[in-house]
């Protein structure tokens, strides 16, 4: 039983926070942050219509949030050809568990399949960290269409962590509308190299006529969530091996398409 003095503590706390309530913008910020984890974000157009755009991200603990979200966002393009055919409109990824390279077996157990992951590449890039999480494929109403596990690996060289590898076995595959910037072959596995330009804008940013025109391009995305307008060039080498989908992603990397193809081939050769 609480004493009168303890009752006063309770009353004082109630008085202190009694006038506090969730701000009108809190839900908006929560929705925005969730979408920043990789989901497509509707941004208002000048005429009041909405357009779906891929998001930059924040809040990833260990990985470059922007990079991670871009990887997921880019995956949207890869399955949908940029026009989002079918139900899936985007992905939300939550990475819950980190693993060292020595724990690859555990990560694969969590994934439910084996993945080609290297500790070191011949060009000097080395394993930094990897995480496994569930990715939700969502429709335009944010309803989950299906869920699949995904592996995200970061690679670093000379202190710069600009290469990531994303591995999954998503059940939905599709064709891209965008023509690849380069293609290559590794045995019977087809590799494609794509370059995308991302413009990151603050929340509430109003699209210009130029933005709208750029959004018509297959290789240009506008993502909401940065403090100021900034640009990023994202490169991908993608391939499928034994039903597993791989996306080697460069974030403003100096590596050329040929150099990224070489890394992909090293990964494909991994046993």
């Amino acid at each position, binding site marked *: 039983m609480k004493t009168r*003095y*303890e*009752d*006063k*503590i*309770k*009353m*004082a*706390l*109630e*008085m*202190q*926070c*009694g*006038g*506090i*309530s*969730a*701000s009108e913008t*809190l*839900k908006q*910020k*929560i929705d925005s*942050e*969730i979408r920043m*984890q990789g989901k497509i974000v509707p941004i208002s157009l000048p005429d009041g219509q909405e357009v779906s755009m891929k998001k930059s991200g924040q*809040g990833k603990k260990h990985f470059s949030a922007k990079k991670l979200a871009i990887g997921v966002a880019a995956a949207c393009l890869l399955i949908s050809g940029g026009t989002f055919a079918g139900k899936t409109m985007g992905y*939300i990824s*939550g990475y*819950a568990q980190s693993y060292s390279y020595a724990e690859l077996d555990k990560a694969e157990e969590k994934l439910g399949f084996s993945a080609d992951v290297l500790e070191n590449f011949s060009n000097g890039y080395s394993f930094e960290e990897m995480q496994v999480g*569930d990715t*939700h494929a*969502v429709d335009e*109403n*944010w*309803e*989950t*269409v299906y*869920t699949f596990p995904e592996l995200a690996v970061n690679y670093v060289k000379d202190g710069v962590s600009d290469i990531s590898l994303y591995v999954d076995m998503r059940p939905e595959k599709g064709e891209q509308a965008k023509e690849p910037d380069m293609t290559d072959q590794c045995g019977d596995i087809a590799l494609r190299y794509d370059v995308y330009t991302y413009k990151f804008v603050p929340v509430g940013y109003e699209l210009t006529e130029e933005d709208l025109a750029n959004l018509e391009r297959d290789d240009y995305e506008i993502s909401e969530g940065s403090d100021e307008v900034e640009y990023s060039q994202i490169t991908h080498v993608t391939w499928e091996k034994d039903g597993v989908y791989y996306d080697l992603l460069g974030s403003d990397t100096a590596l050329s398409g040929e150099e990224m193809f070489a890394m992909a081939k090293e990964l494909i050769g991994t046993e």
Partner: protein
Amino acid sequence: MEDEILVQQLKKGSREAFDLLYEKYKNLVIRTAYLITGNKPDSEDVAQETFVKVYLHITELKNDAGFKPWMMRILVRTAYRTGKKKSREVPDDEIERLSESQTLVSPLGQMIKREEAEMISRAVAALPIKQKAVVVLYYYNELSVGEIAELLGCREGTVKSRLHTARKFLKGKLESQMDIKGRAQ
């Protein structure tokens, strides 16, 4: 609607279920966060992060009926991290807000003088973060020692110890302030 049903729907990806859970718990979350962090901007940040984590990690919740303590655990841990970075002093503008606001008087508030409430609030705010969290969960959220222990992932003895230390600190702080005030008058 029961939390358990909403959680099951959320696990299947229902956005509406998330919105309903948010509406149900938003003020509890932000007020608890406010009492632990001591200021409104941080409490908004903590509430935001808590709900984002709830959405992204709901599939990790094994017991659907245990949503509230699971969410509170996320909240407290997030608030810990935020609160640790901050000073123990309550910012003057926050105390000012307590003094001036007309909306802060709870039905029970008539039984306590505003001045005394402010002193208690200051004293609670000055507690180390872990003691403060226990005090808030025990007195404001009205959780039992056992529930707090489960929520924080520690022994009941640890919770009791933190409560005891906090009560002792609060009592000493209040008595000294009352003494100073008495001498000044």
